[in-house]
């Protein structure tokens, strides 16, 4: 009886280890949904409509990028009389007001410069300043919210607007690509991440009928939707885009991702600036999860946000750090309690990870081959060198043993089964430890050695672990009720649209 209980406990630990593969399995399910997009799309309801569109750009110290962005917007394949750009200058201290005034003079009636005398309250407040003025006028039929650095391809707004012919649609978002050229290792990681998180995940969400987030840099709303939202953007959180997206769907309107409307943005080029941006997003996600706690896994007729699939997608990302720590803890407990079972669980976990990794990476690179060619090295190394080694080893232990014969790994690992040893403890602890090492990369970056060491550490631990560390930090910040600060990502105008 006692033995059975111990045995049962071991199996619970094995299950907890296998749960470590859930985020990858959920991502695979989302990628499989992409294949259903050719049937469940919104193109049948599209029509060539050109609603009078107000383009709202919040700007704080954007002198380096705002001029070319406005020029690009004025060059859109869209009737010029149906376009107005409202630049809301959030009390900039650089040359933004002068650039804005020059553009207003260059495009009279099309570019309107609004200035807040007191700024720094965050993007949502800046947007609301412009929104109040735009809604006070009947002219606007649709509102495009974007960022100062975002470069729209000429056909992008036209392709977004065609979905607004369907009165059930409340908002449309575009595919944002990372456009820094030549860029660096970090912008390439982000470039690949955006294939998975936008081109793939949002297609999957189109199929599901539930969208997690309108891209902050490219969201087109109908006037009716904005009025239904109360005519203002939520200012109580750090995830105003996600709140707007959820509210739109809860009010019964559809949110559409248009993958063929492409816009380019400059994304963070260092761990420090990525950390600031993603901490803000992750804290926003904690706030969204809490605010909509009665929504999850409760299917409704009015919207699909409560569907089981959407809940799994959301929580597999949201809880990934918890899953990784639990997985490591269960493996280490088994290591000391029932070593053969630990090996079985470890092997199963990494076989699943290997299969999902190959499928997701291969398919993602094919979904957007142009970006794929630019970022394939980062795609391959997305899980990090150590995780990649574990994946290869899990699939081909004999091959690995042969290749590394005489090295320390073969002394401890697979010879038909695993042997105890410090290297095994390290591998079992790695899912959790990788987040700590990723944090170390962030801490080390500003130092003299960090310039070389930190990129190397990111390649070793993986970009995914870096994002998980950031999500974990967001839990801590929210638990401590840390102040909500808007740390703006610095933009320097490096975006080059590939020809």
């Amino acid at each position: 009886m006692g033995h059975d209980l111990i045995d049962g406990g071991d199996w619970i630990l094995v299950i907890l280890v296998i749960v470590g593969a859930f985020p990858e399995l959920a991502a695979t399910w989302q990628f499989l949904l992409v294949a259903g997009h050719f049937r469940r799309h919104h193109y049948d309801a599209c029509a060539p409509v050109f609603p009078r569109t107000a383009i709202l750009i919040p700007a704080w110290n954007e002198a380096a990028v705002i001029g070319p962005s406005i020029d690009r917007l004025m060059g859109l394949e869209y009737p010029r009389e149906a376009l107005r750009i409202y630049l809301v200058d959030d009390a900039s201290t650089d040359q933004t007001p002068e650039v804005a005034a020059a553009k207003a003079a260059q495009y009279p009636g099309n570019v309107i410069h609004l200035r807040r005398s007191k700024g720094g309250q965050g993007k949502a407040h800046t947007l609301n300043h412009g929104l109040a003025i735009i809604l006070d006028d009947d002219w606007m039929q649709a509102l495009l919210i974007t960022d100062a650095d975002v470069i729209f391809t000429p056909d992008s707004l036209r392709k977004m607007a065609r979905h607004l012919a369907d009165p059930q649609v409340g908002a449309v978002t575009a595919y944002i690509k990372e456009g820094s050229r030549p860029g660096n290792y970090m912008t390439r990681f982000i470039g690949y991440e955006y294939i998975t998180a936008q081109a793939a995940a949002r297609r999957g969400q189109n199929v599901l009928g539930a969208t997690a987030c309108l891209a902050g840099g490219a969201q087109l709303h109908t006037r009716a939707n904005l009025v239904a939202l109360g005519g203002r953007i939520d200012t109580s959180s750090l995830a105003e885009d996600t709140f707007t997206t959820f509210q739109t769907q809860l009010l019964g309107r559809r949110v559409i991702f248009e993958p063929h409307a492409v816009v380019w943005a400059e994304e963070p080029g260092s761990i420090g600036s990525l950390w600031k941006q993603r901490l803000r997003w992750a804290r926003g996600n904690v706030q969204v999860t809490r605010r909509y706690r009665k929504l999850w896994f409760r299917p409704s007729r009015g919207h699909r946000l409560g569907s089981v699939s959407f809940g799994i997608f959301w929580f597999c990302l949201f809880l990934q750090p918890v899953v990784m720590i639990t997985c490591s803890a269960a493996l280490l407990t088994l290591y000391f309690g029932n070593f053969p079972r630990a090996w079985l669980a470890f092997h199963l976990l990494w076989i699943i990870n290997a299969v999902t990794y190959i499928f997701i990476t291969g398919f993602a690179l094919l979904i957007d081959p142009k970006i794929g060619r630019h970022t394939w090295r980062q795609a391959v190394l997305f899980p990090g060198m150590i995780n990649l080694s574990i994946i290869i080893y899990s699939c081909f232990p004999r091959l690995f043993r042969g290749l590394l014969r005489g090295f320390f790994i073969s002394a401890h690992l697979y010879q038909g089964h695993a042997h105890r040893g410090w290297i095994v403890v390290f591998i079992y602890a790695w899912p959790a430890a990788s987040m700590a090492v990723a944090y170390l990369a962030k801490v080390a970056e500003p130092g003299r050695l960090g310039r070389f060491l930190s990129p190397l550490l990111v390649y070793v631990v993986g970009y995914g672990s870096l994002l998980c560390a950031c999500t974990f930090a967001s839990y801590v910040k929210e638990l401590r009720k840390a102040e909500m600060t808007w740390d703006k990502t610095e933009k320097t105008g490096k975006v080059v649209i590939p020809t």
Partner: protein
Amino acid sequence: MGQDREDGKGGDPDVTADPGAPRSRAFDQEIRDAIRYEQGLVVKALAVLAVVAVIVIVRTLYFT
């Protein structure tokens, strides 16, 4: 009143598509291209799944 004074309170602020309006050939072609791209993604997904299957088979046959 809009800045260009072309519109007033009596204007229709809703987005509407005129169902009688002719759809240009270019527009229809663009929609067909988009759908064709989405269909191509099915083929790509199947191709990658096939590669995964081959790896699993090779691994099962030769590396266990």
